[in-house]
């Protein structure tokens, strides 16, 4: 589903990723980890074409991402749900509208949007907050909305960048179980985190990023 072959990425001449190769299979839930600043976010950005590789090939859901034309990029992104590290919620829209936006972009019918968003709101147990603006919600609640927005359009791939960033243990567990549910429904999930506790004992595949390359691969 996600395939990197010899991928490199440089910022101002400095290599962040160098000759990276790995594959995430369809239906997998995997982690990518490493210390802060190692290039996890950069790696995710390469997947959804917010950054372009300086070498190598990236295939995501059948798209050759490095070669995508500007006009095609939106169509790749519709297959990839993203849980941004900085959330990227719109503060001038309600919780409902923030989630619905993803479906409006997909050109879904208003009636269908309403039903789908309501279901997702129930899934993340935030139905009662649908008319609230995101800035009035706690960090954990905001995080759940970002996840809801990323998964509501049923993407084939879900990427999450530090999804438990500064949340407490309980909330984190809560969030992680959401990802397991999404994965159980068939979505391939890739989570970037610097926090070992997240994948410890999960039995899932973990890629360790260190100094521009994948140092090792292990089961968490």
């Amino acid at each position: 589903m996600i395939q990197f072959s010899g991928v490199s990425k440089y910022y101002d001449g400095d290599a962040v990723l160098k000759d990276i190769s790995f594959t995430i299979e369809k239906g997998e839930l995997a982690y990518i980890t490493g210390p802060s600043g190692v290039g996890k976010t950069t790696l995710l950005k390469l997947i959804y074409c917010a950054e372009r590789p300086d070498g190598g090939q990236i295939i995501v859901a059948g798209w050759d991402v490095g070669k995508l034309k500007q006009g095609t990029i939106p169509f790749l992104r519709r297959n990839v749900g993203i849980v941004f590290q900085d959330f990227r919620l719109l503060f001038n829209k309600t919780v409902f509208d923030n989630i619905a936006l993803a479906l409006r972009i997909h050109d879904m019918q208003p009636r269908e949007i309403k039903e789908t968003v309501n279901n997702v709101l129930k899934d993340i147990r935030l139905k009662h907050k649908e008319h609230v603006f995101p800035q009035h919600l706690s960090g954990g609640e905001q995080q759940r909305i970002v996840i809801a927005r990323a998964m509501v359009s049923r993407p084939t791939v879900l990427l999450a960048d530090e999804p438990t960033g500064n949340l407490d243990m309980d909330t984190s567990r809560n969030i992680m179980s959401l990802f397991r549910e999404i994965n159980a429904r068939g979505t391939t999930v890739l989570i970037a985190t610097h926090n070992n506790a997240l994948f410890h004992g999960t039995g899932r595949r973990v890629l360790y990023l260190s100094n521009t390359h994948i140092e090792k691969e292990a089961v968490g």
Partner: protein
Amino acid sequence: MRTLIYALQTAMKSIWHEKWINLLTVLSVGIGLLILSSFATVTLNVDSALKRWAKGFGMVVYLDGDLTGKAENELKRLFLQDPDIIGVKYISKEQAVRELRRTLGENASILDELDENPLPSSFELKLKRELLKPDVVKKKAEQISRLKGVEEVQYGEKWLSSLNTLSTILKTGAVFLGCAILVAIVFITYNTIKIFFYRRKDEIETLKLLGATRTFIRLPFLIEGLFIGIAGGLISAVALFGIHSMISFKGADILPAIRALMVAPPMRAYMAIVIAGAAMSLTGSFIAVGRIRY
């Protein structure tokens, strides 16, 4: 289609949310279009007045004194056949004297001193209106004066050329002013839409990351620009109509003939104002949104 509906909703929200800056923009566009359309109306009126005066324009062809009736008839036939000439009037020596007597009035008795009629007979020719340009008329006059039996051709050369110059100046002015104002409207809308675009920069960035197409992102801004242009156009059309009606009604008290003389802007012109506003504003917002890169 759904994208269009959603874009309409988004645009409407933005129009309402930013109502003051939008109102200001609409008014600027409206005032610009009003100046433009007023000037065009004035030009239209002056031009039609000029044309009306030009209708009375004639060319007088004086004939040789010793021309036979047959030769005069020959000339008349020639003039009547000429497609450029739409009116031919023959004035005989006798008629000419009678007219001169009438003009002289009391002093007409001096004519009695003469034993012979000194006035030549003549033709008064009317030319097609399209030909009433100084150089064309001059050429025609030369051509006629070369005919056998023609003594001299006279016409109001100076008068014709100054009318023509005035009309040309007005038309050129209208075109220049028009272009300047249309460019200004593009710029005004560009400015406003650019401000909105920058204010929503973060949101647009998020939309891009969520997989929104360029159309999805652009459409609300284009609709808003279109709205500004149409609203500005409508305002100026209504204002122009109001001003025109006021002048033709109030003006009639002072100068009763004004209503017969004034030319009302045709319905097409009102539509053109709105369309021009819409097109220019749309262009401005298109430039403002610019190329969207992912």
